[in-house]
């Protein structure tokens, strides 16, 4: 897990890695789909996987992350933590070469997020390649020195 400090570094990073899968507050879930459907729709569309196979894959990821309880909830019923997990798994399901978590504090406003993010990324390690976090400079003490 690496981290970037500000908007300038984020822009440079996105220019260098245009294929990076972003997890951020600006890219929400589809409100009228459940969490499992939001995750399954990616392989269903991109790899032409049947719904059952795609939903099985999404269920496996949710179980692996430890959040299968929220599988059938829709966005308005999710806690911040569950919504973050759903976005993370939606990005992770397509094995992106680079994953970028954009200002996790905006996605997880009511918890000390570095341990949570670290735990989740460890659980999903087999699905993820290069993980980056961009955060405000004043949150630097939350992360290991660069």
């Amino acid at each position, binding site marked *: 897990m690496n981290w970037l400090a500000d908007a300038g570094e984020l822009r440079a990073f996105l220019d260098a890695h245009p294929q990076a899968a972003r997890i951020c507050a600006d890219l929400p879930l589809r*409100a*009228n789909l459940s969490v499992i459907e939001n995750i399954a729709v*990616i392989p*269903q*569309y991109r790899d032409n996987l049947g*719904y059952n196979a795609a939903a099985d894959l999404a269920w496996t990821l949710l179980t692996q992350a430890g959040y299968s309880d929220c599988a059938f909830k829709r966005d308005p019923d999710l806690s911040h933590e569950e919504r973050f997990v759903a976005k993370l798994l*939606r*990005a992770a399901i397509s094995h992106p070469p680079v994953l970028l978590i954009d200002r996790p504090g905006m996605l997880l406003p009511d918890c000390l997020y570095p341990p949570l993010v670290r735990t989740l990324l460890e659980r999903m390690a087999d699905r993820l390649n290069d993980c980056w976090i961009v955060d405000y400079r004043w949150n630097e003490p939350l992360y290991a020195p660069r």
Partner: protein
Amino acid sequence: MQFLTNFLTRRGAALLATWRIWQATLRFAAEALSASITPSTYNSATRAVVMKQIYFTAWQILPGFTAFAALLSFVLIQIVVSTAARFGLGDYALEVSMRLLVLELLPLITALFVALRSGSAINTEVALMRIHNEIDALESAGVDTFRLEFMPRVVGGMISVVALTAVTSALALVLAYLAVYGFQLWSVPDFNRVMGKVFGNAVLIGTALKTLAFGLAVTAIPVTEGLAAPRKLFMAPVSVLRGMVRLFFALMLIEVASLAFKYM
């Protein structure tokens, strides 16, 4: 003078906005039609959306709408049959009632019903998707939203309007037979002869095209209006209002064009 300049500027801007949205609608409808007949457009996800759209637009309303159409057809057939008999024109009652119901009223009523129920829902959903940035979120996940979200809705809507029109028209034929000939089967050849006269090839093709145009309008207009909604939540109701008004005019225009083509 300043007042006149402001007035003309405002009217001109409104006219240009209207022109742009109709242009966008026509472009979207053409792209959706061309994508819908391209087999490579379809995959597991798009087929699922098409099926969902047909389920919500046609299957869910089938019992209630069929009952309503049967009642309306029965009442109108009775009115036409009894009025024609009173004027000594009983021989034309069947033909007139079928022209009125199957060729004109039922396709229009079906399109209006689907527009009210599904068109408004599609308009709202697309507007909210745009306002909440859900379209960009899907695009950034590598999903082509035109192919996943919008084109399947058009296909589902067209299939639904055609299917509902076919079901209600078939029911109207049965009711017309019962109203004119009663509960017996030996007048079927006479009935077929009249139907053959009413439903010539050109008329059937014209009605099929009109019904397809209705199906295209009730989905393409709400989608483009939703996509044109400004990214402000309070504009969602305005987007639906505009979409429904444009849809009403488009349906009436299709109907008037079809009448003019058929009877002039």
